C-alpha cells in the first residue's frame, strides 16, 4: 500500500502545475525537517517555510516522512556523531559561540549534537538533490509526459482493460 501511495503521489507531483523549483524546494525543506526531531525549533521553522512559501506541500510531506523514517531507523546516531564532531571542534568554537547566539538561531536547538548533525546532513542532502529533482520534474514533463501521451502505440496500449486496471491501481482514478 505504501509503495502504491508513493507511486501515486510521485505521479501526481510530476504531473501537477507546480513549478519544478517549487517541487525541488519542497523536497529540500522536507529533508531538513525530517533530519531533526519534531520538537526542535528548526523543525518548526521548516514547517513554517513549507506552509508559507509556495512549495509543493505533498512533496515536502513525502520527503519529510522518508527522511524521518531513515533517521529513526539509524541515521540519527550518525547525526549525533557529526554534530558532536562539529560542536566540539576547538577551531570552530568561536564560530559556534557567535552563530548560536544570533537572534532566532538561538531558538533552533542547534546546540544539541543530534539536531545540528541532522541539520547539516539535511542541508547537504538538500543542496545535492535540489538540481537533480528539478531536472527530473522538467525532464518528465517535457519528454515523458508530453511525448509518451501523444504516442500512437501508448494510446493503443492504454485502450486495453488490463492497462486501465493497472493505471487505476498505481496512479489512481483521478489521473
Amino acid at each position: 500500500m505504501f509503495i502504491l501511495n508513493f507511486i501515486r503521489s510521485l505521479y501526481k507531483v510530476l504531473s501537477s502545475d507546480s513549478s519544478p523549483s517549487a517541487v525541488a524546494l519542497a523536497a529540500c525543506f522536507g529533508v531538513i525537517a525530517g533530519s531533526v526531531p519534531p520538537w526542535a525549533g528548526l523543525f518548526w521553522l521548516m514547517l513554517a517555510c513549507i506552509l508559507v512559501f509556495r512549495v509543493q506541500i505533498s512533496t515536502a510531506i513525502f520527503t519529510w516522512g522518508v527522511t524521518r523514517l531513515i533517521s529513526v531507523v539509524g541515521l540519527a546516531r550518525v547525526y549525533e556523531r557529526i554534530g558532536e564532531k562539529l560542536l566540539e571542534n576547538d577551531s570552530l568554537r568561536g564560530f559556534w559561540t557567535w552563530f548560536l547566539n544570533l537572534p532566532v538561531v538561538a531558538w533552533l536547538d542547534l546546540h544539541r549534537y543530534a539536531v545540528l548533525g541532522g541539520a547539516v546532513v539535511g542541508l547537504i542532502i538538500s543542496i545535492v538533490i535540489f538540481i537533480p529533482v528539478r531536472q527530473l520534474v522538467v525532464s518528465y514533463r517535457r519528454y515523458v509526459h508530453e511525448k509518451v501521451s501523444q504516442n500512437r502505440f501508448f494510446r493503443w496500449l492504454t485502450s486495453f482493460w488490463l492497462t486501465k486496471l493497472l493505471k487505476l491501481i498505481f496512479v489512481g482514478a483521478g489521473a
Partner: protein
Amino acid sequence: MNPLRWVRWKVVAVLGCGLAALYFLGFDEIALSKVNSAGEESRAARWSIADMGLGLLAGSAEVSDLKVATPRKGTDDNVFGAAGAKLDLSMKELLRGRYVAEEVALQAPKLTVTRRKDGSINMEEIGGPPEEPPPPEGPPRDWVCTLRKWYERIQKVREKPPERSKEPEKERGAVADYSRRATYPFEGRPSFAIRKIAGTGFEIAFADEASSKPLPSLQNGTIEIYELTSSPSVQGEPTRFRIAGDIAGSTLSIGGTLDFRGERSLFTLDTATGDLPVALVESFIGESLPVKLKSGAISLDAKVLLDGREKLDVAPKLSLKKVELEAREPGGKIAGLDAASFTQAFNEASMELDSIDIQDLKITGSLFSPRFEWGDTVKNLVASGGRAYAKKQAQKGLEMGKEALEKELGKSSLGDGIKEQMKGVDMKSLPKLPGGLFGGGETKKPDGAESK
C-alpha cells in the same frame, strides 16, 4: 519573477489570525499557569502570582500579588511579596534566547525576615533544596552563619565543573540521545538577567520566634538592585544594591556590591543606621558577638569588605547608647580580657555617659575565622574601670571644648574678657556633660554641631 508571489498570503493571514487569537485570548492564562506550576515545582523557592498581563509586542509584562516562599512545602513561610510588578522586557534579547528585563518596578515590596527557634534565618533556605534536612542540634545560629552558608553555596555553584558531553556513551544502539549538547556557546552570558529592580514603599518585617518581644520593622523604604543575573561569574557589571528606610524612628541605609565575576568573590557593604534597639541586633547577629546585648540602642556606620574565603575587613563605627551588656561566657575572654570585668566596666561607663563611641574596632581574618582587633577605647575602658573612665572622658571632653571655645573667642573682641573669667574655673568642679569614648581621644560632638 515577483517575490511576493512566492508567499501564500492566505496561509500567512490564517496563521496570523490564529496567533493573534491565542495572544489576545489565552496567552496570559497559559503564561500564568506555566509560571505558577514552575513556582510549585521549583527546588530553589516557591512562588506564585495572582494575575499576569503580557505585552510581548511592547516588551512589557505586569504581575500582581507576587509571593515568594521558602522551598519547604506545606508551610506558609513567605519571604518576599509585592502587590504588583511591572517588567520592561528586552525583546531583542528574547530573540537571542535570553530572558532579560531592563527594569522591574515593584509596588509595595515586603520582605519577611524570621529567625527561627533553632537560630536559622528563613531566607537561608531560598535557593536550597526543598527537603533539606533540618540543621543539626548545636549552638544557635544567626545572620553570620546564614552569610557563611550562602557564601559556601555560591562557591559550590562556581566550582561546579561546566556541563560537558564527555560522559561515557551508553549503549543506545541506533537511538540518538537528543539531550546531549554543547553548553559553551552560552557560558559567556547569563540566561536570566534583570538590569534594575526598584521598589518604593518597601517594608522589612523582622520576627524572632525565640523571643516574645516584637521587633520593629523597616517602613517607608526604598530598594534598588542592579544587575541581578543567573550567572554572576560572567555578568558584565557586579551586582549592586541599596536599601533605605525608617526603622524604630531611625533611618537605615544599606548599600553594597556583590562581585563574583571571573575568579572574584568580593562582597562590600556600606551600612549607616540611626539608633537601633539592641533587641533587633541581638536577634540577628547576637550569636556572633562575644557579649549579649541586654538593653539600649546602637547606631552603626560600617564598611564591610569580604574578599574570597581569606580576607575579611570590617571597620565599624559604633555608638552605643545606654547599652547594657552581659558576658556570654562568664569565664571567657573579651578583647583578651576577662569577660566579667569587661562587661562590668562597660556597663558602668555606659550608665555614666550618654553614649560610648567605638571607632577603633577592626574585624579582620576571614568569614569563617574572624579576628577582633579591639582598639584603645575598649582596653582603656577596662584598664581604668568604667566609672573612672567615664569621668576621664567627660573631663577630656570638657577640656577639648574649652580649647575650642578659647580658639573661637580669641578671634572676637569678647574673647579677652571671657578668657580672664575662665582662668579661675576649676574644670573638675563643673557638672558632668555628655562625652565620648573615642579611641583617638576625641569627644563626641552634639548632633548638628559643626566644628565651632
